[in-house]
């Protein structure tokens, strides 16, 4: 196991912690929390997991709507639609899931808990370091993203999706809209099947 318990794994004072401890209370403390924690809050994220079943149904209808809008996207051009849609997607999903804009959303397979919030960015399940109280090993005050994901997935209709092995993240898709890509792919598939039938 790489997780050999060693004296060396004792929580050591990081540079950030030393700066924090030495500075007076009123001073500017840039390193008050770890970088990943600094970018996140998780009250709404936890609500989303609790309501995973509702969001699953909602997203299904929403994706359907986006697909019916395919002629419209085509008319303005997917390339031109990209920026405004990405902006809206970032705001909405950022608020609801603390979305990190990986551009290849797997929320439906992870119980509506965004796996990119995991400090190790695991996309296939929890690591071995989950604390007994269900919190993260790296961020002791954060509920483990994957403990949440498992709970959320069990509330969903498609509770088997979490068992599918996910491919590694394609970093070149970062900061792009996964809504538009999913729509474009679905439209292409629909056309291909139509051609086959014809």
């Amino acid at each position, binding site marked *: *196991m*790489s*997780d*050999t*318990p*060693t*004296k*060396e*794994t*004792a*929580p*050591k004072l*990081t*540079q950030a912690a030393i700066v924090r401890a030495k500075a007076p209370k009123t001073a500017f403390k840039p390193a008050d929390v*770890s970088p990943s924690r600094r970018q996140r809050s998780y009250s709404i994220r936890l609500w989303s997991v609790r309501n995973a079943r509702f969001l699953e149904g909602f997203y299904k209808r929403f994706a359907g709507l986006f697909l019916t809008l395919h002629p419209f996207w085509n008319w303005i051009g997917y390339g031109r639609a990209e920026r405004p849609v990405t902006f809206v997607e970032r705001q909405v999903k950022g608020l609801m899931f603390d979305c990190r804009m990986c551009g290849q959303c797997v929320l439906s397979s992870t119980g509506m808990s965004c796996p990119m919030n995991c*400090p*190790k*960015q*695991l*996309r*296939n*399940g*929890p*690591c*071995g*370091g*989950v*604390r*007994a109280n*269900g919190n993260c*090993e*790296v961020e002791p005050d954060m509920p*483990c993203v*994957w*403990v949440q994901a*498992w*709970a959320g997935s069990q509330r969903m209709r498609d509770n088997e999706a979490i*068992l599918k*092995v*996910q*491919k*590694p*993240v394609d*970093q070149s898709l970062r900061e792009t809209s996964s809504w538009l890509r999913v729509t474009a792919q679905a439209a292409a598939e629909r056309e291909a099947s139509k051609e086959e039938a014809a």
Partner: protein
Amino acid sequence: MSIDRFLSDVERPLAPLPGHFSRGRLERVLRRGEFAVTTELNPPDSANPNDVYDRAAIFEGWVDGINAVDASGANCHMSSVGICALLTRMGYAPILQIACRDKNRIAIQGDILGAAAMGVANIMCLTGDGVQAGDQPGAKPVFDLDCMSLLNTARSMRDNGKFLSGRKLTTPPEVFLGAAINPFAPPYDFRPLRLKKKIEAGAQFVQSQYCFDVPMFAEYMKRVRDMGLHEQCFILCGVGPLASAKTARWIRSNVPGIHIPDAIISRLEGAQDQKKEGKQICIDIINEVKEIDGVHGVHVMAYRQEEYVAEIVAESGVLKGRKPWHRELAPDAERIIERHEAVDKPLTPQQIIDEVVH
């Protein structure tokens, strides 16, 4: 003249066998149905190869595989590829650990090829601890792949002979793929399913986190058996001696993912010699887990107590008289050594001519 020069073919890989994916001894031992023993080498903080050789020598003849850890606990040590290179030179069967924390997919795939070329037959795919746990918390955490996609990548390199990009390999790596399991951390319901996922991704053997709670492990194994996973993958239970009750307490509160029940700590506290009792607890746990259906071996992790591994294995009797691989002299080595000694004798030209003439 060093005796090491006359060892029988230590560096040659074994002949391929049908149904085997690697040419290593660990896979053969497991597929023969023997109870396997693996252990972990404490990586040195030095550039001296003898540090690795000395640390490996104490396991010789007691284990079927030696894990070369990849910066365990995010602490910097000699690299696992380097350790494996040294171990394969001596003929040991190393298990190369790859943690996703430090390398991206480009570096990892290169390492897999390099390691396989050096004769590494076993690769263990891990996610790795977060950088905050180690001695250099300011490092950039990479985590480009996770253990599951790493397994998938290594398997497709071996079975399809292709990189992740689809580019072809001229010779695919022949490796036996491993992964880690931790039945002792939440979400408990998901843990057996996660093992199933790892098997689907390519895991052929798994080593578990330290097991101190046998009933909990038995419960996990029951669910594993219900899903038939013990027939698709070799399961090695992780065990190890605790040095003292104080260490146990410290591990329990500081190392996430290791579950130590109160009973173990009170048993340690009640003992006269805590170190000895820790070893005895480890032996008792081995004796309990080896009876669990579906357990194919043990992984003995004795961090900084490596000298106990041989005793633990011997006293628990898990090998049932079997002697795992150890270095031995080639059949005619003695005659070669004699001859070398004769040659090494300084002779004057006159003496040589005398010997040839008479």
